[in-house]
């Protein structure tokens, strides 16, 4: 409701408008989860979210650009992330390589930029007297990146990102196997096809023209949201935001491409010859409802019952009782277009991935038949609520207050969606979990990956395991 009102006012093109959002009264025991904040928009379209938290003399500055790997062009996978690297390379008024160094030397924490399928973000938590510096740095790259761009910077960051890819995929156990699985879940030309990091080939192909076009299309103030959370004076913060961001030119908010949901008909099985990992692994993935839509919270609850803790269903059966698996996990990766529910098990030495798959299926069958218990559901709820509260301890960084506000704002338009988010979990029932397992976790609508170290691999460790 609140989100709709805000949007309507903004659509009328009113000048910078803000209204203190009184934190909604949350359910009993949930009062501590309220995040009082205000949201307004500059005339150039930049959204601003302010939330005061004077606990420590630090302030988080966090910018989300509403662009991710989802918005890449075919043949340019990995571009959104490569571009993120370019945002640290200097802009018109900020010399090369200075952005991070300057923040580090004034005592910043939680300083980074990240890209996922749906968005790209940049954040730093600085001592409270350095808010202006953080805003200066963020505004300069939002407004003046292209003035300082050159070919050498692009070439260097292409190399850096290719090294990041080598570290995360080529030389990491199961890295390439996981990539294959993902590509099978989202066949080209789906915009989630390929991992966020992109392929070596596409990374090599990126040109200066690509960088410029990407910046002009997606990095306009109208496609960004700035959150400032922490120990600041609201009047002063508003004045600084006005000073640094209001003159940045903007265009219309770019349209988000609409893509039809993928449907998997028939099981796809991948057998990957694993060169790095030493133990066989099996992964099963299904396409599930998008983040915050019906079924997404149910999937979280089920994942918790299946894979979290020693008494979870998969751990108990595969690791503890049968001693077939070395580790198990279950999780719902919630995404804007379509989510992915995954079960994963790594085998003990001498155990095959097929034997593990059989056990995973047996546990799944049980859930499809009987659902989960009320107690399992309660445990999951307590855990999520504790985690949610714990996230609010930090003003910035991964999962901190700024990120929570930004995330809700990105997906729903309402930074204060936390209450509704928790209500989703309240609404889950054991029966809903059972129905979810039946409807979505079907054997004929999944991708199964077997990553099996080759018998005659030259890696001595792998050889010894058989």
């Amino acid at each position, binding site marked *: 409701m609140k989100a709709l009102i805000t949007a309507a006012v903004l659509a009328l093109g009113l000048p910078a408008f803000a209204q203190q959002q009184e934190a909604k009264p949350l359910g009993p025991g949930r009062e*501590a989860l309220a995040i009082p904040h205000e949201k307004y928009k500059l005339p150039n379209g930049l959204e601003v979210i302010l939330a005061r938290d004077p606990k*420590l*003399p630090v302030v988080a500055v966090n910018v989300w650009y509403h662009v991710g790997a989802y918005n890449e062009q075919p043949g340019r996978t990995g571009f959104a992330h490569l571009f993120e690297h370019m945002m640290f390379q200097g802009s018109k*008024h900020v*010399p*090369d390589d*200075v952005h*991070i*160094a*300057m923040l*580090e*030397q*004034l*005592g910043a924490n939680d300083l980074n930029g990240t890209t996922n399928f749906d968005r790209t973000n940049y954040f730093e938590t600085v*001592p*409270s*007297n*350095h808010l*202006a*510096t953080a805003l*200066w740095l963020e505004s300069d790259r939002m407004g*003046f990146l292209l003035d300082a761009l050159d070919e050498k910077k692009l070439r*260097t*960051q*292409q*190399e*850096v990102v290719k*090294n990041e890819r*080598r570290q995360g995929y*080529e*030389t990491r*156990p199961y890295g390439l196997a996981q990539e294959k699985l993902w590509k099978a879940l989202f066949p080209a030309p789906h915009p989630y096809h390929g991992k966020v990091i992109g392929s070596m080939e596409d990374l090599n192909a990126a040109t200066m023209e690509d960088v410029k076009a990407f910046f002009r299309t997606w990095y306009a103030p109208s496609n960004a949201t700035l959150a400032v959370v922490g120990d600041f004076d609201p009047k002063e913060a508003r004045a600084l935001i006005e*000073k640094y961001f209001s*003159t940045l030119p903007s265009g219309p908010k770019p349209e988000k491409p609409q893509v039809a949901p993928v449907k998997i008909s028939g099981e796809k099985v991948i057998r990957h010859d694993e*060169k*790095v990992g*030493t*133990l066989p692994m099996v992964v099963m993935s299904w396409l599930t409802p998008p983040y915050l839509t019906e079924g997404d919270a149910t999937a979280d609850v089920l994942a918790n019952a299946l894979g*979290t*803790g*020693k008494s979870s269903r998969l751990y108990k059966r595969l690791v*503890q009782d049968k*001693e077939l698996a*070395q580790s198990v996990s279950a999780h719902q990766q919630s995404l804007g277009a379509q989510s992915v529910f995954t079960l994963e098990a*790594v085998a003990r*030495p001498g155990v095959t991935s097929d034997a593990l798959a059989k056990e995973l299926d047996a546990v799944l069958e049980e859930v499809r038949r009987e659902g989960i218990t009320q107690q399992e559901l309660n*445990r999951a709820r*307590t855990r999520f*609520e*504790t985690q949610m*509260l*714990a996230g*609010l*301890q*930090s003003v910035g960084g991964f999962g*901190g207050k700024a990120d929570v506000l930004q995330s809700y704002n990105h997906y729903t338009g309402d930074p204060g969606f936390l209450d509704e988010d928790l209500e989703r979990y309240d609404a889950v029932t054991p029966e809903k979990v059972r129905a979810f397992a039946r409807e979505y976790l079907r054997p004929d609508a999944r991708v199964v990956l077997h990553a099996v170290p080759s018998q005659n691999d030259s890696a*001595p*460790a792998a050889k*010894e*395991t058989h």
Partner: protein
Amino acid sequence: MRRLFVAVSLLALAAACRTAPEPAPEPSQPPASEAPATPPQEDPEAFRNQPPKPGEPPELVLPKFEQAKLDNGLTVLVSTRKELPLVFVGVAFASGGSQDPKGKWGLADITYKMLLEGAAGKDSQTLDQAFQDLGVSPSVSVNPDGAFVGVRVLERNADEALALLSDVVRRPNFAQKDFERRKKLQLAELVRAMGSPGFLAQQAYLDAVFGPAHPYGHPVSGLPATVETVTLKDVKGFYQKNVGPRAAALVMTGDVTLEEAVALAKKYFGDWKGSTTPPPLPPEPAALPRQQVVYVPKPGLDQTVVVVGRPGVAVGHPDEYALELATTVFGGFFGSRLNMNLREDKGYSYGAGASTDARLGVGPLTASSAVRKDVTGPALTEFFREMKGIRERPITQKELEAAREGLIRAIPGGFESVEGLGASAAQLFFLRRPMDEFARTVTGLEKATPAEVQRVAEKYLGPDAMQVVLVGDPEVIQQQVGPMELGKLTPREPVAPPKR
């Protein structure tokens, strides 16, 4: 190189702004030096040319730790933070992996992990379910100087969590069946770890720097052959010898006061008996001149893991803070000499860094990176160039001030969470530091003089005593590193996991 110097000179600019803190200037008045003859309205964006002046620095808020002792010798460590109804509850133990007996590496790790395999007659499932009902899964971390088990819970669940933790710590089941299972799990985990180039590097590195006889010379997880020999009797013996109220601390942080924590400690640990005391300090290893370059062959690996280092200092050593500053300038920040060279200038790596780990005994001083395989030799050359560079291009006042200010000012933000406070409290206990350690850290960082920092930089970052460990394609290493004459190239096969 150019890029590095540009960065450094800009750091100077910002550092100058910070040392003279003033209220932010009027936006319409750029500094006089900026555009002396130009009317201000000509370029409305000219104000962006200078970094803003920071406001008055806020008072440095350091985490506050309080301590009490029960009659039985149990330490109670508390850091109160009331903003959210969250409490971190944990128990820290004064013995870690460095106390593994010879030939039984991994014993400390298995022993502490056995605590969660059942306690007070509850089997591991029932115990885990009890924690799950509180919304948490406890985990144990074991490091060379100590171990820590704990959970973050809603304030209303703190009493119950503590009741469970006291069972875990004081009344472990140590059942034979559970031990066999845990041991097999640990052995299989080592098999899995052999797939990770980073783990292989760590294993070879500890051996190269400390030697296998030193308490820090092996990974805490042990090696397949040493874990294989561990028995339940060993586990019980380790527990008897190392776990007791005089060698443990109850850690509570968050929405709890010292008084409340002491009351809870008495309730759950007051009648805990035992005379175990913390173990002696690990000896100080010599930093020997490098004779060899150790490499772990992984044919076909796309990157080479490079780890370079030597013994550094013990916690509390007079050089500790000067060395922290020197290491930060060298490789401790993103903007450090090493990272700017290997990543931002050369594009050899996704990142390169260095750190000093001041342990109870002498901890390692380490620089590392994963580099593209075909630049293994050139990357190693740059590591050494930067080490020599410390002497040839002494640490500037500007670099030093940037590191000093960065390290000090980052402290408050590092303590936002109750779990962060808890982990720090546990560190204070393992490392036997006073409760005002963070104030001492700030003083130590503030007082280190440029001459002192340069002296320790030259002493500890000198290339000759730096051991080198590489994990990567053996052919590439031989071709590229062999001719560099850094020492005899010595292959080290990964320790074969057991056949089972």
